[in-house]
């Protein structure tokens, strides 16, 4: 952002500008605008295709029937199994992500004198850059095969939870940093033990910000399909049992996209639309929660 004064200076100068510099300046502006346009075009195309193709085959059946009910001709069936699977696995992920993520953020902001703080912060950053597929493979080696759990909703939820942790840590840490130091000091001066200051003063003050961060983290992992391939595996039948193989919405979209039937591809588009709409709604809710502060 340029201040008004500097814009005036620019206007004053430009009258005596050499043509070459004037042309260069104009060219830069055109290129920047063109580049921005090129960035926005695919976005509009993706949204357009998503809505047109997604809505055209979206019906009630999509939400009430499972993939196991798909008939040979492809007229029946829906993604209920995948939607339920996503909800169940995100619930597991939420528990893990919230407990470990917020706990770690408390450690980083409220126990700054602790000697492990720099290492934990570094490792948190390292985890942020970890590809999701790697996390899926780790859970496969550790839980699916290592502990003998087999492919299951729990394993899928675990992998999503691990991906969520660094996202929640970062968001929560930012909010906790905003809580005024004087609030903590006021609590301590009243003789409150440190843990009560954290639980009864710091966290409630930061609540709406933390909720925003958690919602955004859930939205972020809800679209992850890669780790589910190795952990939840997928299941065309509806199940509420997280020890069974489960499908998730993004995983079902991925698998359906490769199926030769047109109905399956149409369902994939509907699944993609539902997924994106859910993520958008979650982001809007998160923004709303942030604004209420």
């Amino acid at each position, binding site marked *: 952002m*340029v201040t008004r004064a500097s814009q005036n200076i620019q206007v004053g100068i430009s009258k005596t500008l050499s043509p070459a510099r004037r042309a260069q300046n104009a060219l830069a502006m055109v290129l920047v605008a063109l580049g921005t346009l090129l960035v926005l075009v*695919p976005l509009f195309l993706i949204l357009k295709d998503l809505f047109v193709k997604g809505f055209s085959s979206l019906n009630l059946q999509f939400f009430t029937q499972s993939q196991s009910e798909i008939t040979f001709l492809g007229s029946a069936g829906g993604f209920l199994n995948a939607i339920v699977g996503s909800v169940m696995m995100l619930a597991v992920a939420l528990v893990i992500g919230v407990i470990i993520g917020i*706990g770690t953020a408390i450690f980083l902001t409220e126990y700054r004198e602790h000697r492990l703080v720099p290492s934990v912060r570094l490792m948190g950053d390292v985890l942020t850059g970890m590809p999701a597929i*790697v996390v899926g493979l780790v859970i496969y080696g550790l839980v699916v095969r290592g502990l003998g759990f087999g492919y299951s909703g729990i394993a899928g939820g675990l992998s999503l939870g691990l991906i969520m942790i660094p996202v929640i840590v970062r968001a929560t840490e930012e909010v906790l940093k905003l809580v005024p130091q004087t609030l903590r000091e006021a609590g301590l001066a009243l003789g409150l033990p440190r*843990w009560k200051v954290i639980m009864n003063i710091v966290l409630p003050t930061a609540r709406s910000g933390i909720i925003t961060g958690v919602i955004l983290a859930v939205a972020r992992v809800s679209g*992850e*399909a890669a780790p589910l*391939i190795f952990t939840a595996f997928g299941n065309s039948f509806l199940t509420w049992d997280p020890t069974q193989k489960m499908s998730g919405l993004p995983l079902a979209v991925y698998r359906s*996209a490769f199926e030769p039937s047109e109905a399956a591809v149409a369902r994939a588009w509907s699944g993609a639309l539902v997924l994106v709409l859910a993520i958008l709604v979650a982001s809007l809710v998160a923004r709303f929660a942030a604004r209420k502060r």
Partner: protein
Amino acid sequence: MKATIPQPRRGSGSRADARFQAVIVALASIVLVTALAYSVVLLLNGASAFGREGLGFVFGSNWDPANGHFQAFPFIAGTFFTAIGALVIAVPLALAASLFIAEYAPDWLANPVAYLIELLAAIPSVVYGLWGIFVLIPATLPFQKWLASSLGWSAPIGPGLFSAMLLLAVMIIPFIAAISRDVIKLVPNDQREAAFALGATKWEVIRYAVLPYARAGILGGVILGLGRAIGETLAVTMVIGNANRFPQNLLSPTATMSSIIASNFGEASSPEFVSSLIGIGFVLLVVALVVNFLARIVIARLTPQGTV
């Protein structure tokens, strides 16, 4: 500004305090050991692949599951080809978008554009992949055919290196643009006003006063974008064609580390096959770690002194 919190008096609260702190430290320790645990688990599960093939696992090119040969170099190369190609397309566009938002556009235009680009970042990988297969590839196929025939390459089938680069570029643009925008906005206004006062044009201000100042952050963002492109899985898997070999040209199908893992995992019947895929996962983890540390070092080294 580090304020040390005064310790409360010893008393009824202090034991509960110790317990609470123990819980918090335990939770943080999980984060502390996770990255190491990831490496150990993948190394243990992929060890037999390294054991069988030795260095050939990383440097050899014979990937033939039917005959028990698992050498992953084509996929390591494929990962770098696609990621670098995507960066070449994405960086200028992302930079343009961030300059537009931070320097050129008035607020009423900059805010919606910034929001739309954030939206682009929120779309899941699998949705990009779906769009890639059914919209992007059919739309670019005529161009690919024209390019192949004018260069004398074999006819393209659509899915391949080029499609993967293009789709990856679309996916990492919002990521790089968001970081660059933040960094450019952090450049102090004094910097711009000083350049304007010397008679610089808008472009000269950006070129000589803003970009050099923001250089470290932008480069760091680009490297983080590279890290993201390297780890990106499903979208690439859906449009790269998943051929177990080096690409003959820019348009031919090939595979990346993540795409070969994702596309072959279901068919991996033998333990050797599975351990080889996990071994590739380990290589991917190491590459991702190196790229992320590189980004951090670049940001630390190149940041001008006295930056906010």
